[in-house]
């Protein structure tokens, strides 16, 4: 009942967006270009399906390609600028993209783009599930480890023979493509988009999911899932509901500053929870092992 259609769509789109932020951040690229990429994907996909009559799957794919392509100038920025400076620069670049759409009349400008063909929520759910699995695969692959290495210490990674700039641009492109997919899904589920849907506030929301969940695919899943659902369940608090959300985040970060799943493993989390529970019978707690191996959903 809580997971009604629109909530499913919301969670799915948020998960894809969180993953889109994960990839560049893991590779050390502090890209806040999310709203820009999402906008490009959204408008491109909408244009293809609404004005050119293409099937929706094709439109979504073209949207992904378009946003990945747009990430190239961002990537060039990333070669030269780093850390928080890059964050601000990408933020600025994303704002420029949104500004462009505000004045681009063929897609409606500030009036927005209406009449986009509707897709059911399960499109978003399936896409999100696929992207999550893909992310897990990449994360555990050599490529994923290379990205991680680049993010941890680019100089050492370079010394070890990794092509740091290329990897960073790839991470950025993957992130952009994911955001573009989310954008395409967004435009078709809500049937209407306008530049006001692609603002910096969205980046902040997604960043919260990522940081609270932990910089891993599993973390992205948990972060986006939990934090999207908390507001849905707190409507009884009426006007105090946003405060609950904030309190949950603070408490989470106080106990788990690295996120819920800082490594892509479930076991440490279970051990942590168990170690904080008062044992009813001290003998009983000694008998059980700290982490049951069969609970490992993913091994790193």
């Amino acid at each position: 009942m809580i997971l009604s259609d629109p909530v499913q769509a919301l969670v799915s789109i948020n998960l894809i967006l969180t993953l889109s932020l994960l990839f560049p951040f893991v590779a050390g690229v502090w890209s806040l270009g999310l709203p820009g990429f999402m906008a490009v994907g959204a408008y491109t996909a909408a244009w293809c399906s609404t004005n050119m009559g293409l099937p929706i799957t094709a439109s979504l794919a073209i949207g992904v390609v378009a946003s990945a392509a747009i990430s190239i100038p961002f990537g060039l920025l990333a070669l030269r600028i780093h850390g928080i400076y890059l964050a601000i620069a990408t933020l600025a670049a994303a704002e420029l993209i949104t500004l462009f759409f505000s004045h681009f009349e063929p897609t409606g400008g500030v009036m927005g783009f209406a009449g986009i063909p509707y897709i059911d929520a399960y499109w978003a759910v399936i896409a999100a599930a696929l992207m999550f699995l893909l992310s897990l695969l990449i994360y555990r692959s050599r490529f994923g480890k290379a990205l991680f290495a680049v993010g941890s210490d680019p100089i050492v990674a370079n010394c070890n023979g990794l092509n740091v700039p290329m990897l960073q641009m790839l991470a950025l492109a993957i992130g952009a493509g994911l955001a573009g997919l989310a954008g395409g899904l967004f435009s078709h589920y809500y049937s209407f988009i306008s530049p006001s849907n692609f603002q910096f506030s969205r980046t902040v929301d997604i960043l919260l999911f990522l940081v609270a969940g932990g910089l891993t695919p599993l973390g992205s899943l948990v972060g986006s899932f939990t934090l999207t659902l908390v507001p849905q369940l707190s409507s009884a608090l009426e006007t105090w509901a946003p405060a609950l959300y904030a309190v949950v985040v603070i408490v989470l970060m106080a106990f788990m500053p690295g996120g819920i799943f800082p490594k892509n493993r479930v076991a440490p989390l279970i051990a942590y929870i168990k170690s904080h529970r008062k044992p009813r019978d001290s003998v009983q707690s000694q008998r059980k092992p700290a982490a049951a191996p069969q609970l490992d959903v993913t091994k790193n």
Partner: protein
Amino acid sequence: MKLKRLVLIGAAAFAGATMQLAGAQETFKIGLNVERTGNAASYGGHVIIASQIAVEHVNENGGINGTPLELIIEDNRTSPEQAVVAVRNLDRKGVAAILGPIQTSQARTAFPATNRAKVVSISPGSGAPGLAAQNRPWAFRNAAIDDKIFTDVVGEFKERHPDAKRVALIMDPKDAYQVAFIGKVAPPAFEKHGITVVNNGSPLEVPADANDHSVFVTKLRSMDVDAGVLGLVIEQGQTFLHELNRQKVEMPMLTGIGYVTNSVAEVAGDRKVYSGQPFDPNGSSETVKAFTEEFAKRSKEQLPGQYTVPLYIDAGAYESIRIIADALKETGAKPSDSTDDIRVKIRDYIAGLKDYQGLGNTLSIDENGDAVKPTLVFETDGGTWNKL
């Protein structure tokens, strides 16, 4: 141990559910898809009050042939995505019709959703052109943008300031309503009355989050005009008026819809501000008085320090609930009817609404699903608004 506990919990839940069903009174439910939290929370708070007053008035007068109305509130958190969730939740709760969202941002996504759910949504505040037209047949608006309104405002202004020859347009370029109002509605209205718009095509742009309007007012001063046209939302409009006072700019102002409330009149002071809207808060009819007095009382209690004179949005909300109630009454709806039937009846009633006695005025719904209401022009006079 665990199983026993589970069974106990399950039994309790089941008992609670059945008790709920058994004790539940038969009502007609009206959903409120409202901005209860988020940036528009103040508007939402006032619309909730207006809606609650409307529901109580209906119930005091015997409800719907004996069956009371019930208001179900869903918070859309001033978020377009959440507005869709709100529509779905209200749909699931079996509401007969939905009032809201207030703002265009939320209406843009809620309206397609309401069409899919096949339940009526009426927005009391969305003004962006064409929105209801794009979402037929289930979306309606009780607050449309109307060319006629502003032409009348300019007419009254011209009568009182016959020497005014030049005006300047002021707006937030990112707001769809303002783009339409300032871009398409205002210039022809001035042309009709022989007034030149000096910055037609390149209006004075005030960003939505700008707190400091000094640069914009200074720019206005350099334009050598006789009056300004404030397309901004009421909050920004107030800030602009305040800065006009500070920079000692003496010129009358014309505004878009939504300025007729005490907070604006107070900041306007001795300046003449002209605004048009379909609702007269000082109206003499019994219904209007009953509404405005109760609204002022509750606003003071529940939202201290905020405005107490109902905006056209609040009036629109009250009116829309009464319209839905009348739809239920006139079509002879019974609580035992299927929800789908009731919803269709309400939709058809509203779509065919002609010359309905609203809150101190008469309204009709046009083929776009927008309400057509006569204009009233207001002028500030030393701290209050007067109807012209």
